[in-house]
């Protein structure tokens, strides 16, 4: 019985090993289609927000043009692209919005919808989501 358990542990370690093999090039920025690709994802995201009853109310009074630019810059920088996001930190931007877990996940789902619409491959989507996930703690319940 012990042998089987250590076998499973080995399999886990092997998989973890695969996970950490470098996939440096190309950059996520390139995989997302450069700044134009990211801007198109942001446009789709805004469409998805408008149709999402959990998210739409939060954006009612937001300058959508400004958000479009800032959010695209933000993703572009996060994806190692040649852009600079000049806005405030995630904690400051979302302070006082009282975003709960469900609303956060709704935004994640809208982003997935937007990326599907732009035919972004699942593995590239996961790469972007993995970089966004650590921001959650600065965005929810603030």
């Amino acid at each position, binding site marked *: *019985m012990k042998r*089987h*358990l250590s076998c*499973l542990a080995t*399999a*886990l370690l092997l*998989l*973890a090993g*695969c*996970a950490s093999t470098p*996939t440096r090039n190309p950059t996520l920025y390139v995989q997302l289609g450069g700044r134009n690709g990211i801007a198109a994802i942001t446009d789709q995201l805004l469409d998805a927000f408008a149709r999402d009853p959990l998210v739409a109310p939060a954006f009612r009074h937001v300058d959508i043009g400004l958000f479009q630019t800032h959010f695209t810059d933000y993703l572009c920088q996060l994806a190692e692209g040649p852009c600079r996001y000049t806005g405030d930190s995630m904690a400051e931007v979302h302070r006082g919005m009282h975003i*709960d*877990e*469900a*609303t956060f*996940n*709704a935004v*994640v*789902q809208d982003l*997935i919808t937007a990326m599907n619409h732009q035919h972004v491959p*699942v*593995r*590239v989507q*996961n*790469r972007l*989501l*993995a970089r966004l*996930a650590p921001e*959650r*703690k600065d965005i929810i319940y603030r």
Partner: protein
Amino acid sequence: MKLLARPGCLLALALPLAAHAGDGRLLATGGVTEIEGSAGGGLVPWAVLAGYGTREQSGATAFRTRLDLPDYRLDAWGAAFTWHNRVELSAARDRFDLGTLGQAIGDPGAALRQDVFGAKLRLAGDLVYGPLPQFSLGVQHKRLLDFTIPHLAGARRDSGTDIYLAASQLLLGAAAGYNLLWNVTLRSTAANQFGLLGFGGDRGGRRLVGEGSLAVMPDPHVAVGAEYRQKPDNLSFARESHASDLFVAWFPCKHVALTAAYVSLGPIAGLRNQRGWYVSLQGSR
């Protein structure tokens, strides 16, 4: 208690209770339902709680499973309710059709039935977010309804309580770009064949067993993986070994999950290695 003894009733109770049901968690993060009624894989309870409710919401699931083996058949059904993604309560009925063995003992329709009442507490962590896995502590109280055959086989008791600690984590993009889900469960149990052959025996009683699951998600709607589960081996008359499976679970939406698996339970009550197809349907709200 009489009412609770019927898993179907709990289902009827739980679904209206979930009137404030929410589906704020991400797709597939409620897992499916394992044969003892807890949220998990097919054979192993995971640290995830049933349904899709967040800390502000409640969720519920109902499931129906069939496993066809060369000499037996296992049917399972039940329901689970989760409060605020903190506590999961579940009830399930397992019916193990004795098939070949039933004929051999001159009772062709013979079956072993047990009820499993489960509770699971999420201790810490989140399946998807944060550096730590999600940790949960669970109990499964099992009551065997048909004890004659297990007693003849040497089982000591007709009821028992399993206690388990589970850790689960979904790692975004960790399997060559695809999402990887891992789960490890440690269980203290005296159950023979999950409890269907009673509890304890001449070879021993309660012991610590290990269980694990590993899955890759080629797409947010699909999980493909394997599970492994140790079992105690308490009966000289009916030796047993570990159980394992290969599975595919499909989550077309947050309300439905369909799982197909090829399961191996090892020898059961003296009959050869039991391997067969497993199908399970889960509804959530």
